[in-house]
């Protein structure tokens, strides 16, 4: 059989760290980093006798996420214990939610080649993160760091509605974008604050029964999600084509070799012995509470995009790129407020800013300058104070060492030459030095004008006003005819 006879079934369990100031069950800071075990207290270190107290912000953030993804919000919910032993789990159970999650039955829409597609969400529940094990370079064992233990997470579980690696990526990007918009998670994938467990299975299109799935845990970049799915799909089809069968197992994706490996330490199917946590009272949400959150929900990417299409006449493609990231979108809007030139700001974001982000593998959240600075840059060009080629240099400066663009051009001496006398001087000099080009132009070769302007720009280190240069060259050249 050929590959096209197979259908790929993918489901994602996405974990997002919530950006609350304090942990889910104690008042320790959630801040990333910090010397090991400095963001801890008797509660998150699971000292005997301590008790958890649920951080209400966590519930609020999870409800926001639920509402933003079209979920039903449970009026009655509870916390359950998931029991297992590991040194990074100090209580030997994780407080999670089992059969009564906060949010259920939602969906998000993604763009596919065939158009819009709904990916259904099974549920969103709250839980606590575990600590981290560090290899001990001196003793050779492992050292436990509990700074991350008790950092609040939401787990967003999708239905197996995803049919390709590309759809998985689009879905993940969409979730990231939504979570950023509603400001419940900073979604820094490198720091692990957004990560996914990916479930993959394949089946023949003619089969009605789903195939056996494998799970790849803790994927924290779009690229590895795509590569891992593509690899795993190929591997599973190869196994089936060879008459083999797929084992239901947890796999580890190795980015370096580009392969998945079986995780041997998982012996049998774990029995987590879930049961309701008797230390915590049930979570009861009133209609009013949910309504209040609904009313404070910010504008979501989809509606911002629509607004950009209508209000600013952006192309669908550009509007998609800008609204995909809340940070880009916020940058766009605040820059427009300063310069009132949406087209120009759009161009800067789509071309130069996106290029630099790509080249330096930077997330939009890490853009060091703000909309005010970008807006001022556009104003300087619009006013003719600098040329757009100088503008590109100013942008690079903004990435390097963000400050007021006016200060940058003053400091660097990049202010455009618009003085008629000065321009005339340059034009004369260039005409004198390039008689051949002058002759070419007069012989009808219009391209020679471009060359002459280029030479003049070179001479002035790009500072000459290009419009004035153009006009003056034309004037001089035509005069001689």
């Amino acid at each position, binding site marked *: 059989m050929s590959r096209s006879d197979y259908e790929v079934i993918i489901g994602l369990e996405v974990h997002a760290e919530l950006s609350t100031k304090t942990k889910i069950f104690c008042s320790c800071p959630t801040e990333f980093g910090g010397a090991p075990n400095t963001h801890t207290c008797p509660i998150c270190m699971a000292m005997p*006798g301590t008790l958890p*107290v*649920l951080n209400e912000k966590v519930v609020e953030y999870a409800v926001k996420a639920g509402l933003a993804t079209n979920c039903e919000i449970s009026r009655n919910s509870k916390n359950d214990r998931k029991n297992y032993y590991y040194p990074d789990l100090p209580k030997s159970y994780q407080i999670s939610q089992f059969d009564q999650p906060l949010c259920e039955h939602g969906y998000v829409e993604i763009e596919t080649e065939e158009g819009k597609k709904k990916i259904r969400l099974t549920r969103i529940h709250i839980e606590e993160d575990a600590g981290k094990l560090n290899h001990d370079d001196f003793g050779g064992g492992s050292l436990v760091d509990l700074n991350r233990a008790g950092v609040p997470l939401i787990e967003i579980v999708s239905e197996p509605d995803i049919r390709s690696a590309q759809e998985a990526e689009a879905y993940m990007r969409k979730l990231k974008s939504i979570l950023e918009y509603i400001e419940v998670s900073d979604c820094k994938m490198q720091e692990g604050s957004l990560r996914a467990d990916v479930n993959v299975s394949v089946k023949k299109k003619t089969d009605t029964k789903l195939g056996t799935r494998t799970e790849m845990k803790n994927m924290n970049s779009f690229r590895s999600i795509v590569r891992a799915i593509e690899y795993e799909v190929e591997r599973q089809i190869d196994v089936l084509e060879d008459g083999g069968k797929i084992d239901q197992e947890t796999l580890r994706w190795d980015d370096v070799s580009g392969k998945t490996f079986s995780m041997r330490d998982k012996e049998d199917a774990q029995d987590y012995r879930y049961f309701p*946590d008797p230390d915590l009272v049930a979570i009861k949400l009133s209609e009013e509470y949910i309504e209040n959150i609904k009313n404070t929900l910010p504008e979501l990417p989809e509606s911002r995009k629509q607004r950009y299409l209508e209000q600013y006449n952006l192309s669908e493609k550009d509007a998609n790129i800008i609204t995909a990231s809340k940070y880009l979108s916020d940058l766009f809007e605040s820059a427009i407020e300063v310069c009132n030139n949406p087209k120009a700001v759009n161009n800067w974001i789509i071309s130069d800013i996106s290029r630099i982000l790509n080249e330096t593998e930077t997330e939009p959240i890490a853009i060091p300058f703000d909309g005010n600075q970008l807006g001022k840059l556009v104003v300087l060009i619009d006013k003719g104070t600098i040329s757009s080629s100088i503008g590109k240099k100013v942008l690079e400066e903004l990435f390097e060492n963000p400050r007021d663009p006016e200060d940058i051009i003053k400091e660097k001496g990049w202010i455009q030459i618009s003085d008629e006398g000065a321009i005339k001087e340059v034009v004369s000099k260039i005409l004198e030095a390039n008689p051949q080009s002058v002759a070419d132009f007069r012989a009808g070769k219009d391209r020679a004008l471009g060359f002459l302007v280029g030479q003049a720009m070179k001479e002035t280190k790009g500072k000459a006003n290009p419009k004035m240069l153009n006009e003056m060259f034309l004037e001089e050249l035509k005069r001689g005819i």
Partner: protein
Amino acid sequence: MEITELTVHELQEKLKNKELTITEITKAYVNRINEKEKDVDAFVTTLTEEALQKAEELQSKMNSGEITGDFAGIPIGIKDNICTKGIKTTCSSRMLENFVSPYNATVMEKINSENLINLGKLNMDEFAMGSSTEYSYFKTTKNPWNLNKVPGGSSGGSAAAVAANMVPWALGSDTGGSIRQPASFCGVVGLKPTYGLISRYGLVAFASSLDQIGPITKDVKDCCMLLNLIAGHDEKDTTSEDMPKKDYTKCLKNDVKGLKIGVPKEFFGDGINQEVKTRLENIIEEYKNLGAEIEEFSLDIAQYALATYYIIACAEASSNLGRFDGIRYGYRTPEFSNLKELYKKSRSEGFGEEVKRRIILGTYVLSSGYYDAYYKKAQQVRTLVMNEFDKAFEKYDVILTPTAPTGAFDIGEKSNNPLEMYLADICTVSVNIAGLPAISIPVALNSEGMPVGMQLIGNRFKEETILNAAYTIEKKLKFREKYKPEFKGGAK
């Protein structure tokens, strides 16, 4: 009268009238501990030196007027599963033999802020699992009435220390009867408050939905005073109830006229010792004479309470005790070759037999495939038990039962028979299942000269009703005036 024979309210009176000083009181208790501890073995950790020093400090602060307060300088003993900062909290387990808590339990914060003097940490069944204090890793506490008999458990050290006048009062904890049954065996007063009345923060958890800290005292008035000290909402424990503070001494009216007392016949049936029944029937007559209305009724569901209790308690315990894994604190096996072995050996060596038995039982009932048949079913029965009690409290103010099916039994008599040991809780567990308050007070001696306790169960947060009913019969019976523990027998 000896200083150590006085109740706390009597001590307060004498401190106020300057008949006694804090130092005199503390010295008297330290001497008593030094004299009796070798016979009774009530303490895991004694703090006699620290107590004397604290007494000096408090006395001079008292003299200079720097501190006032009704409880300053009153000694107390603390069950060794309540976390005390800087002092070992062992839960009478090898697992926590050298464990020093970095923080104070909320009840300890309250006690310290009132300047009480902690005389030491009291012995118990390991992790509060047991009914005789024989399951302590360190020592078996003896019953001051007869040193060959158990003091009950799991708060056996607390009850024995109060009975032996080694502390004027003590804190215990009660998950299935662990305050009331030892109080009954040792002839003292023990109260299991309503679930949610006392903060559990800092009580090393056995079964979170059942555990409750409570007072063990010489009389009912002291019980009210200690309850005043420790009760109240705590934002660190979300299962603690937020309600206005009460003064429980105010409910002591010495009057039960018109009080409706229900007597469930199931608590006077098979399995209850005939002598216990007879003694309690006399008390029921006394209550009638005092003007209470007595009625027998059926609390049929109670027969399922013990099974329900052991499923829920063990399930929660199996999860609560997971944190003792040899990683961060507590016992770690000296030799291991991998993580699994570290866990296995640390826990096998660090826990005693009874604790392991309950962890295994609890793990089993939560396992997939068994959850519905055991844990879920037990939770359903729990709801039925609650409903049945609710119904009873529509008719009665108080429910009267024996505290334990027998008086104190001999050391060694049941320690190798877990099922028989579990039956010692048959009268007390349903109270924890339903989250109700209940008090045990001594009402008589049996033919072996051992105390017999009566249990009064109240509706949720109606501690006052049972405290007053207990106080009234206490006044009538004068048990403390008539009988004293005699430290009979014993090998030493």
